[in-house]
């Protein structure tokens, strides 16, 4: 065994140039895979976090049917009961009740449509990033005329802090027109078009007054202690809440688009990765064959003096294995260092908007253990598989034929 190892090691360095090229071939493939995975993971993380950590929370509770049309009449009458349940549940990290009503939003200069969110400032700050998203003015502080609008909407309505805004909407149940006056107290920017262009935030009590519902809400957003949404505890909370005409869904169901992007990218990564390795394998097979051809005479001699076919097979496989190891080291070094660099600095991908999330900043890549354990294992297995074909060839060499071939 030791001899085979020694032999294999020395053999691969007989033609250093070729070995280096082969190592680069496999190594770069591994590095490419690691990086591609890191970039994709980074993008997905940004997309998921932009959804779960900005406004939407990790799960939401609504009246069944509310999400179809945002029907203002479908409110949670026993919102306070549910909130009490949530406060007592230690699996739930935070929750925030919201009144949601669509209406017309006008300034002295322009009018636009939008969604009015009535929230409790303190509770909302535990669930969403609204407070951090404020770029001008102040966050909600309980004054009834406060309103927070998105920067794009502020520009559209041509207003700034202190200016007047009139919200016109229809009350719940009666459908009567209701109007209310507000003054812009803060401007926010999330970097998500849908929120920035369409949402305004007011204090929940004022919203309830305008919409004419007592103590009710349309939506309760939740955050959990466990960041893995598929954890059993989290799912248990949701199924407990999913009763009668109440619906509790996690972000994967609320944003099926992002989920489908997730699946698609996983799927396409597998495909691209397989193709890449298939192509690289061709190069590996070629390389091994070249190294065997050069030694045909030598193998002929070896077999003539009594080496068994199996031993030649082992030798070549071993050489392949060693090359795979070296390549993995190379690939991990390249992929890992680039990945690390981009994890810190972010990788500039240009201006991208996918599923409503603006990805125009440099996206930090995400390195994970998988990339450094699973991928190299695949590489080694694939390289060994590729080496089988040439190895069998070497094992089957006929000494008399081989000895005739003088180089």
């Amino acid at each position, binding site marked *: 065994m030791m001899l085979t190892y020694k032999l294999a090691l020395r053999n691969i360095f007989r033609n250093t140039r070729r070995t280096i090229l082969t190592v680069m071939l496999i190594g770069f*493939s591994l590095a490419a895979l690691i990086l591609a995975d890191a970039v994709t993971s980074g993008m997905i993380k940004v997309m998921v976090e932009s959804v779960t950590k900005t406004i939407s929370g990790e799960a939401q509770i609504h009246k069944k049917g509310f999400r179809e049309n945002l029907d203002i009449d479908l409110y949670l009458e026993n919102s306070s009961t549910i909130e009490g349940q949530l406060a007592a549940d230690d699996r739930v990290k935070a929750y925030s009740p919201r009144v949601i009503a*669509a209406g017309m939003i006008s300034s002295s200069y322009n009018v636009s449509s939008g969604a009015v969110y009535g929230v409790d400032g303190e509770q909302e700050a535990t669930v969403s990033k609204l407070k951090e998203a404020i770029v001008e003015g102040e966050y909600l502080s309980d004054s009834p005329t406060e309103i927070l609008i998105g920067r794009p909407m502020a520009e*559209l309505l041509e207003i700034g802090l202190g200016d007047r805004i009139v919200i016109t909407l229809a009350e719940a149940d009666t459908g009567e027109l209701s109007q209310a006056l507000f003054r812009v107290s803060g401007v926010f920017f999330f970097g998500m078009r849908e929120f920035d262009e369409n949402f305004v935030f007011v204090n929940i009590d004022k919203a309830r007054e305008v919409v004419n519902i007592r103590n009710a809400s349309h939506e309760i957003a939740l955050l959990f202690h466990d960041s893995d949404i598929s954890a059993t505890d989290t799912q248990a909370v949701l199924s407990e809440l999913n009763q009668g005409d109440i619906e509790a869904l996690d972000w994967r169901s609320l944003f099926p688009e992002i989920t489908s992007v997730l699946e698609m990218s996983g799927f396409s990564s597998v495909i691209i990765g397989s193709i890449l390795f298939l192509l*690289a394998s061709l190069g590996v097979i070629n*390389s091994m064959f070249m190294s065997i051809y050069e030694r045909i005479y030598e193998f002929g001699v070896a077999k003539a003096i009594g080496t068994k076919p199996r031993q030649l097979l082992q030798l070549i496989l071993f050489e392949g294995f060693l090359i795979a190891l070296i390549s993995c080291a190379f690939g991990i070094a390249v992929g890992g260092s680039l990945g690390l660099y981009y994890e810190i600095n972010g990788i500039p991908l240009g*201006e991208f*908007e996918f*599923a409503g999330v603006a990805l125009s900043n440099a996206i930090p890549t995400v390195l994970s253990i998988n990339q450094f354990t699973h991928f190299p294992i695949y590489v080694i297995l694939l390289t060994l598989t590729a080496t089988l074909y040439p190895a069998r060839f070497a094992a089957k060499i006929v000494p008399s034929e081989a000895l005739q071939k003088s180089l």
Partner: protein
Amino acid sequence: MLMWKLAFRNIFRQRRRSILTALSMTGGYVLCVLSFSMTEGSYSNVIKIFTEDHTGDIQIHSEDYLTRPKIHKNIDDNAAVERVLNQSEFVRSYTKRVFSPGLAYAGNESTPVKIVGVDPDLESNTSRLADKVKQGVYFNNQPNDDGYFKAMIGVRAATSLQLNIGDELILISQGADGSIANDIYIIGAIVGSRSSWDSSTVYLPLNSAHDFLTLHGKSHQYALALNDSADVIAATQSIQAQLPAFSVSPWMVVEETFYKTMQADKEGNLFGLFIIVFIVFIGVLNTVLMSVLERTHEFGVLKAIGSRPATITVMILLETTLLAFLSVVVGILLAIPIIYWFANVGIAMPEPVDVGGIAFQHMKGEFSLQVFLLPMLFILSFAIVVAILPGIRAARVLPTEAMRG
């Protein structure tokens, strides 16, 4: 001629090696073709869909209405605009539109809607609106006997308001003069589907919308359909030059976020392909170097008898390029049926994905010359570049090498 024969035969001296190398290049080529076809095809498909459905190839607005819509940023000289459009060789048809946010009421139900006023005839020539009527009849300019105009409404709004054909609809909005706009319409049709972009839209006949919003006949937007969509940039420039007072925007500007995302995505794809082909050609380099180094004696003889170094370099370049070309030919044969399938059937995605504001549901391939040609040039270029170093190495072999055994 002999040089070509020489190159061709040299390739097949080591059949297995050449076949393996060729296969890897074929694989690289096919991958490029597939990726390119899918990207180009899917985007072209989506662009065609939204420009034909409602955006048009080009839109005309006053000032910066596109980015900062305000009800009184309207086009005040219809005659001038329409004169230019009627004369333009690029324009097939156009339509006029007005927009406003509003509240819709029916019975006890209400819901916010987007109000869009369009000229029924112009609109049906320019966009797909007439084809999207699911229930009822496409509307016209005429009021009914009671003096009410007909409106067409999107599915979501119709469902929220529980409306049927013939029901009354009350619309509330804000007029251009600041007054509250308030009118009754009769539902003449329900258009589109739940997920279409206009599912919360109410369409009104243009004249009636003008009155409703106190616009005095002025519109916010002209949308143009061109005879040939490929002319969009030339057409924009031509029309803008003739209408300096207005903003003429091609669809790339109208859907700027989508366009930028598309560009970024395409570039990313190209980069990925580059990396893959680069890796493939590391293997090719290995092969070419090997084949050069084992012919040192032969090159020595060639140089001894008087071949110039350049001749030998060209020989190596020819060999590699020829092999690459053969690989591409095989690749084309393999790719044609696949691309054909993609172009005609394609892959439907379970959920539409929002790309820069546009819903993407179908991945379709493009079947065109450029889809096959560009990757070919790519592979051949790589082949030439990869062969240069070994080629120079071969050319530098000393003629004295010929003497060794």
